[in-house]
């Protein structure tokens, strides 16, 4: 029986292997979050050593801060428009490509390409396209008799940001395409033989089969668009973080407001409180969505099992 007491596994080797992530998580994620919470209880301005504790005053102020609320609502509106459109667009493109087409690989590459363009280049490109006087979009609109639109200022900047977001939906398309290819063809064919039309097959067979993937896309999409800050910054006339105050009102999202508190107003304490509230909002959203997912996401296998 002595042989059974021998084990190839030891806690030591496991922890040795996972220690880079455990230490990294503690020092580079948990510690900064804890530090931010500490700072959020002070009136620290980023440099002066003469800060003091203010308790939860920053949080109380934030609760009555009209600008922060407006920025949060704007963020929700932006997310509420951009995420459904990107997910639906990604699914639509994937359906279009999931058939006997010539050069499927080429089309896929074309649509996937924009999603790997660095954000800085993306912003420069779209500023050129959307430029009021020299941009190609207004030139096209002019040629069909529509007057030039000021895309990069209020109120159109909001839509410019959505266009920019939609341009990058190729990553989602690739995922959807892989999911569609995993749907057994027999199921769809059986339904067609039974007299269902294509739309009903799509609606009642294809979509439920890939609903876990759609669900995942929505969740990660919401979290990604919630935290957007670089795109509004780079689409604006400003060219640095210090110029964050010049971001147009309509793209002044929550994280833009946070950066403004940090770098224009030097209110590190207040900005940290904003970060923490946002962290809790995102956490609550994630938990809520996870809970509700069982109601409408179809899992072929039990999700509780480990592998």
């Amino acid at each position, binding site marked *: 029986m002595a042989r059974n007491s021998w084990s190839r596994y030891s806690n030591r*080797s496991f922890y040795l292997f996972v220690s880079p992530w455990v230490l990294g998580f503690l020092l580079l994620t948990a510690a900064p979050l804890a530090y931010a919470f500490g700072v959020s209880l002070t009136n620290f301005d980023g440099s002066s050593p003469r800060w003091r504790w203010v308790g939860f005053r920053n949080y109380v102020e934030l609760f009555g801060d009209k600008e922060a609320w407006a920025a949060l609502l704007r963020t929700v509106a932006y997310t509420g428009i951009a995420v459904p459109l990107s997910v639906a667009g990604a699914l639509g493109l994937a359906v279009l490509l999931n*058939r006997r087409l010539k050069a499927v690989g080429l089309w896929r590459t074309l649509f*996937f390409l924009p999603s*790997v363009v660095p954000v800085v280049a993306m912003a420069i490109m779209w500023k050129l396209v959307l430029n009021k006087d020299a941009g190609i979009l207004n030139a096209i609109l002019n040629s069909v008799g529509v007057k030039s639109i000021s895309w990069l200022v209020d109120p159109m900047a909001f839509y410019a940001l959505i266009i920019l977001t939609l341009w990058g939906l190729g990553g989602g398309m690739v995922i959807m395409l892989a999911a569609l290819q995993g749907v057994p063809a027999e199921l769809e064919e059986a339904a067609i033989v039974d007299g269902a039309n294509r739309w009903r097959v799509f609606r009642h067979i294809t979509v439920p089969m890939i609903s876990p993937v759609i669900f995942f896309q929505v969740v990660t999409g919401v979290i990604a668009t919630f935290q957007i800050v670089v795109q509004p910054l780079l689409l604006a006339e400003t060219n640095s*973080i210090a110029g964050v105050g010049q971001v147009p009102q309509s793209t002044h999202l929550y994280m833009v407001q946070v950066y403004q508190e940090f770098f224009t107003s030097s209110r590190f304490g207040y900005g940290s409180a904003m970060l923490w509230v946002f962290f809790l909002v995102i956490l609550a959203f994630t938990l809520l969505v996870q809970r509700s997912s069982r109601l409408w996401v179809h899992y072929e296998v039990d999700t509780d099992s480990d592998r």
Partner: protein
Amino acid sequence: MHVNRHGRLAPAAVTQVRFRNLRVSAGAAYVLLMALAVLFVGPFVWLLLAALKTRDEWAAVPTRILPHEAQWGNFVHALTDINFPAYAANSLFLSTIYAVLITASSAAVGFGFARLRGRAKRGLFLVLLSTMMLPQILTLLPTYVLFSRLGLVNTYWPWVLWGLAASPYLVFLFRQFFAAIPRELEDAAIIDGCGWARIFLRIFLPLSRPVLLTSFLLSFTWTWGDYIAPALLLDVDHTTLSVAITAWYRDPHGNAIPTVQAAAAALYVVPALLIFLFAQRYFIRSVVASGVKG
């Protein structure tokens, strides 16, 4: 005989139904795809056209589509008006260091979660998965404040630290790969008296070459494309190409020069696109692994 797209024999009736549907919609599908392709590729073309125009041609009313003569000089200006090669070297250096370190650390952590056992492993893995959801932008500002107090601003240490800390996303990618490797490989090595470190380095790592490449390319493009971290942490001399091309192409009056900036953006985006085109299947693999397996 009719074979459907999964290579299985399909009943003739089904194929005919499909065929008729396809014939009607295939033409429409190509038209739609063409129109969409113009939308997706148009901005690239417009960038290149802007990079080849004179400033007057760029600003001309009504809008000019093509330059009268290609202004290759814009690219020379892009390379020489600011110290482009130095910033490109910074970007390259930072991206490479980060990609090498994070690939190594994520592979090790992924191996631990896939093949080893230890107390609280399940709980730790849940924490790891949930940090995949945690926006990095939330921790970046406090990290910046902490790093500036520790004197790490204007050094490349933050990227070394981030690299050593492994990425939950890449850990997940490696874990999925390592978990699928048959146990017999490991058994044989253990009987030969190998420790886990040797098993990892000699057996599992060589097997995972495609995942290593995916991880390296992916993390390389993350840093190459990152704007906010270098903008916060690095000054004019240390910063990367992404920050440099955003702001510093100005004429003596302080106005941005769009044509030269377009040329610079084209030069900046080329490495990222080349990596992507040559290694597309690796990118698709990683995207799909993260999205479908969730």
